[in-house]
């Protein structure tokens, strides 16, 4: 192309050129993903919000008339209790994952690079096994005539087997072991980015390790901590497989209730309203997160 194109405003030729050079490739590359996300993520999400404001017909069908019935049902004692319980378990899981995961992530991040990536790989491997079977293993270990009870009886710590299975405690154990990597990975990647010389500078200026941690390490790794919170709290709030397997259907969380509304019980608007509740909590956390960090920087994989 000659350097002296005289055209003052883009003529039709120029526009066609731009179409061929930019618009078409952009469309071909970003098009499919955009369409997929709109059709299978955004529209269904909007539709579920819409359904949550409808009401349930006698035969479990959806009656398309505006109603706040489902949201009122959420405030019923039975459902409200489940919501509170789910929140409590999710908060516990998140806290446990942070408290256990932070020192662990710190330990890995302070290793030489090669060794660290091997240690991270070592965390991932168990998670390629079927998650239900991993949960089932806890059940096998803790069941009435399982190894743990056998050991306790053999050691004389208890006379009769202790009932671990189908309790909130075992569900919590399953939750924490299931969610731990999702806390460790984002924590690891922020701690790993933390320059060692900043910690040295703090120490050099008279701060003890505890003070350095509170004033330098913690604030600088806060984005990672918040990613970890999001990536454990939200899934923990919605998951139902852990309570299904380790709670044996006796322990119910929001996820179980939603699933049931689309199964035997058939109350779509109620299930939708519960889903909208989860969406709202998610949106709130993400909103807070984007106040101090970029969504793209969240280490999700």
């Amino acid at each position, binding site marked *: 192309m000659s350097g002296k194109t005289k055209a003052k405003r883009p003529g039709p030729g120029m526009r066609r050129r731009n179409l061929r050079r930019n618009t078409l*490739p*952009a469309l071909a*590359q*970003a098009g*499919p*993903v*955009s369409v*997929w*996300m709109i059709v*299978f*993520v*955004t*529209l*269904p*999400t909007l*539709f*579920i919000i819409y*359904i949550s404001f409808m009401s349930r017909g006698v035969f479990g069908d959806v009656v398309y008339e505006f109603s706040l019935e489902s949201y009122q049902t959420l405030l019923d004692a039975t459902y409200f209790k489940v919501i509170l319980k789910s929140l409590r378990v999710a908060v516990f899981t998140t806290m446990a994952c942070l408290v256990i995961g932070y*020192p*662990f992530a710190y*330990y890995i991040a302070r290793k030489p690079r090669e060794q660290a990536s091997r240690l991270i790989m*070592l*965390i991932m*491997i*168990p998670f*390629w*096994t*079927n998650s*239900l*079977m*991993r*949960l089932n*293993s806890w059940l*096998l270990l803790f*069941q009435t*005539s*399982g190894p743990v009870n056998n050991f306790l009886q053999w050691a004389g710590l208890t006379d009769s087997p202790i009932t671990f299975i189908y309790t909130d405690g075992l569900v919590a154990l399953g939750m924490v*072991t299931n969610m*731990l*990597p999702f806390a460790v990975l984002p924590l690891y990647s922020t701690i790993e980015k933390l320059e060692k010389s900043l910690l040295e500078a703090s120490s050099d200026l008279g701060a003890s390790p505890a003070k350095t941690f509170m004033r330098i390490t913690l604030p600088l790794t806060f984005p990672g901590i918040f990613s970890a919170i999001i990536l454990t709290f*939200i*899934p923990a*709030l*919605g*998951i*139902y497989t852990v309570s299904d*397997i380790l709670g044996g259907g006796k322990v119910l969380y929001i*996820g179980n209730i*939603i*699933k049931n509304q689309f199964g035997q019980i058939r109350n*779509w608007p109620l299930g*939708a309203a519960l*889903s909208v509740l*989860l*969406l709202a909590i998610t949106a709130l956390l*993400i909103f807070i997160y984007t106040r101090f960090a970029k*969504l793209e920087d*969240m280490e*999700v*994989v």
Partner: protein
Amino acid sequence: MNHLTKVQRKRRALRVLGDVYAVLIYTVLYIPVAVMMIFSFNNQRYNYYWNGFTTQWYEKLFNNSAIIDSLWYSVIIAVLSTVISVVVGTLGALGLKRYEFRGKKLVNSMLYIPIIVPEIVLAVALLIIFMTFGFSLGMGSILIGHCTFCIPYAVVTIKGRISGDGNSLEEASMDLGANRMQTFFRVTLPSIMPGVMSAAFLAFTLSIDDVVMSNMLAGAKNSTLPVLILSMNKSGITPDVNALTTLMILAIVAAMLLSGGVKALLARRAKRLEAE
């Protein structure tokens, strides 16, 4: 002379403490896997207690048509959703990284919905859409469900591997006379191949292990392996399933080691060539 100072002793103690802590955590992470493997050798139909060693489940596994059928169903779905999400994800990652267009920010944000929002919500939302618009449930619906969460992971993974320095490689290629297609297959794709491979691996493992989406979107007829396992839960999961999942994790780890080994081999050969 090699008398340790107080500071050195303290550091050493801390290091040992760290090692102990890490070993403890890895133990907890690996206990479920170990238990799963051990109980695949249990000589008892319902795994209620340890009843002696047997390898019979590995033999009987292949006669249990329900399990094998659901395994194939899972594998087919996993392979298809891997292919679809890697193709859409690779193109998407390139498009979102290289071009500016209206709504780009919106698409970027939409990608994070399936990653962050609880899976049950997305599954229910898709179910409602499918039912409302009369789309019958089955392999198609499961496939769409899986791709919906695999694509965003693929895009994010691959986008991380695309260099930020613009299109200079592509420009060089086109400057040297390659057209857009040739440039894509000869320059662009090879340069992001590591990202594409890890996206494929991620998509496959996400799909084959998925319960929530499959359970919600499966029709009455076939079920994937995880859905079958979930339904077995009430009556107790039998040791032959332990045997199957043991074989699966061994296969996945073997594939990982193999690809790692091949990579190391190639790197070594490249180094040798360089040295010559």
